[in-house]
């Protein structure tokens, strides 16, 4: 008899047992993430209690008990059917066109809509990293769009667009204009300042460093005060710029100093060899920068650039303080309307503003994180 017949030899692997119930599925997840130790259980209980305490009242206030339609404040005051009315969304609906356009004449509002459309096109072109001809997109965004927008919004009587003075602009329109001007102006200015700060020419370097450190050392509000109070003093009377333009100059200068530091960070991350290789090819300074260094530096630092834009977008609210009717200011103005004076009007207005800013800023920050992840993948390869 052969040995093989007598010895027990396993010829197939044993069947795998399922993992213990307590470590898989929902139960396992709960145990690992919420209930792993007594301290953890206590934390979980505290958190659940906090959520139960906070979330239902919020939902009730903003959704279930909210007033969605109505003609005036009566709708949002406590009544018999609704002893504790929630947010007064009817107020926001009533004022919504003011929140978007300010006092922009109703017959001309298509111009603002067209501007929003053109801007959306430009942003999409630049933000979509796989878009065709992004160089054209940059030209469109930084040169064509500003000129077109100026003609559209401010008006040129010669081609049949009546003038609309900036004192009539308001709401989201102004917020978007301030943010866009800040972005369009600060990127080129910031790049120039960043290059100036790394320049070998002492006078250029000194001027750049002084500007950057000065602006970064003071609050935006003082820069805006300076632009709105001192700028008219510094130019002859007949050139005194309009109030909105003054604020735009302040925001643009402020943003460019921060942008300069972000771009400088990108430049620092480019290895020396890239500069030396470009010089060895005989490229001049500007060709080296434009063709070799900046494309790499800007790509590396794109997430930081977007983060600076987020800060800039939030900072546009400060023009409120120098008397410009941006979105937040229109909320403040509408909040004081006696037709809608109820205990919940203020909260509703602020909640609406918060949702708007949150959606814009959170969208930008998700985008910047995606780009960052994409860059990290590219680096790993």
């Amino acid at each position, binding site marked *: 008899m052969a040995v093989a017949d007598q010895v027990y030899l396993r010829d197939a692997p044993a069947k795998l047992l399922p993992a213990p119930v307590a470590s898989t599925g929902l139960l396992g997840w709960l145990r690992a*993430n919420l209930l*792993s130790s007594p301290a953890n259980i206590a934390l979980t209980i505290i958190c659940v209690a906090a959520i139960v305490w906070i979330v239902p009242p919020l939902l009730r206030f903003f959704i279930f008990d909210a007033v969605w339609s109505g003609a005036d404040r009566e709708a949002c005051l406590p009544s018999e059917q609704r002893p504790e009315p929630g947010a007064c969304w009817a107020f926001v609906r009533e004022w919504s066109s003011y929140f978007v356009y300010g006092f922009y004449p109703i017959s001309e509002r298509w111009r603002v809509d067209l501007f929003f459309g053109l801007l959306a096109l430009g942003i999409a072109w630049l933000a979509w990293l796989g878009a065709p001809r992004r160089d054209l997109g940059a030209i469109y965004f930084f040169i064509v769009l500003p000129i077109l927008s100026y003609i559209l919004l401010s008006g040129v009587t010669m081609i049949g667009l009546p003038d609309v003075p900036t004192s009539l602009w308001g709401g989201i329109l102004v917020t978007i204009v301030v943010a866009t001007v800040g972005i369009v102006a600060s990127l080129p200015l910031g790049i120039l300042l960043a290059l100036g700060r790394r320049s070998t020419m002492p006078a250029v370097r000194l001027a750049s460093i002084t500007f950057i450190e000065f602006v970064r050392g003071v609050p935006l509000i*003082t820069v805006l005060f300076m632009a709105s109070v001192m700028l008219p003093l510094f130019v*002859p009377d007949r050139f005194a710029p309009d109030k909105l333009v003054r604020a735009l100059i302040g925001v643009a200068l402020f943003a460019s100093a921060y942008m300069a530091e972000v771009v400088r960070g990108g430049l620092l991350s480019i290895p020396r060899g890239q500069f030396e290789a470009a010089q060895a090819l005989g490229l001049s300074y500007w060709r080296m920068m434009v063709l070799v260094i900046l494309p790499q530096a800007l790509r590396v630092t794109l997430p930081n650039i977007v983060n600076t834009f987020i800060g800039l977008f939030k900072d546009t609210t400060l023009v409120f303080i120098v008397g410009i009717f941006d979105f*937040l200011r229109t909320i403040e103005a509408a909040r004081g309307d006696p037709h809608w004076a109820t205990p919940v009007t203020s909260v509703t207005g602020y909640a609406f*503003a918060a949702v708007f800013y949150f959606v814009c800023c959170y969208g930008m920050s998700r985008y910047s994180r995606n780009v960052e992840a994409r860059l990290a993948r590219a680096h790993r390869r």
Partner: protein
Amino acid sequence: MSKMLQFPVRSKQQWTNIALQAALAVVVGGLIYAAAVNAANNLAKAGIASGFRFWDNTAGFDISQTLISYSSSTSTFGRAFWVGLLNTLLIASLGIVLATALGFTIGIARLSRNWLVSHLAGGYVELVRNIPLLLQILFWYNAVLKSLPDLRGSIAIPGGAFLNNRGLFLPQPLFGPNFGYVVAVLVFGIVATLAAGIWGRRRQERTGQPPRTLNYAFGLIVLLPLVVFFAAGAPLSFSFPELARFNIRGGIEILPEFAALLVALTIYTAAFIAEVVRAGILAVAPGQTEAAQALGLRSGATLRLVVVPQAMRVIVPPLTSQYLNLTKNSSLAVAIGYPDLVQVFAGSVLNITGQAVEVIAITMAVYLFLSLVTSFLMNLYGRRVAIAER
């Protein structure tokens, strides 16, 4: 040596550079000159004085919160400046302390292994960071504090405090004549504790005995002043705020503007500090924690002796800039009328005197100075904790 060689030889590029810089200097100088001439003309036309003589003139306006004595009829613009500056420093220093505490808590919570805790902390950070600070300040001021009950409906808080839409009224401590001894002993205790800390560390380096600074601190800073306090006859009493018909008498009043600004600044900056802290802790290589555990350190000791000292090195520089941001952001006080430097000086004083150039220049100089001092101090700290390269 021939005369020719005494001139440095320059390439075409260098000459271009020199020309460029000269052009830059001329343009900047020209702009400044033109601005100065225009400003002088415009100011003369508007009949506004120039120079800093206004500093000693009587201010003539009221300030709602003054840490130093101030009266609208006798105090000068210069005094108003100091009042505003002190108010800015007060809100900034309180804000920094509170935001640091909240920010570290949330930053550590974001790294918790408890899914709910980390996601709640993450939700807080995302929500707060993406809403403009000014909106948050207005929300706390107009929607929360201003909608509190009025004087007659004041909410009484246990301990003798009142809360209404005019502010928070707290008991005011009144110090007896002997209270100075307690303060002196307290100061002595703090100095002695610092000395004990240094001595303890030296002894540890020499002998390996762990320092017992905490014990000394408790004895010197808590026990000793308490003993002196009771020995001196407990020289401390409180003046409680009392509800009168039209106002509240006695106690300390905390303005709703102050409270709204402090709450908003703390919550907003804490979200940024939380991110700084999270990044700093994540920057410590996991091998460090594992090595500490392999040495048998408990998790508390691992955190205190291994992770935190290394994380602090990464955390401090961005933390500094958050502190500076908070200080600069406190200037948003002007939106709700808290009398900080910008509101008092760049607001009231500017409106009364009309001397925009001088007033804005002084205001900016203050913030620049604060920025420079803070970054200088933090650089010192950074140098102290930097890794000693071997």
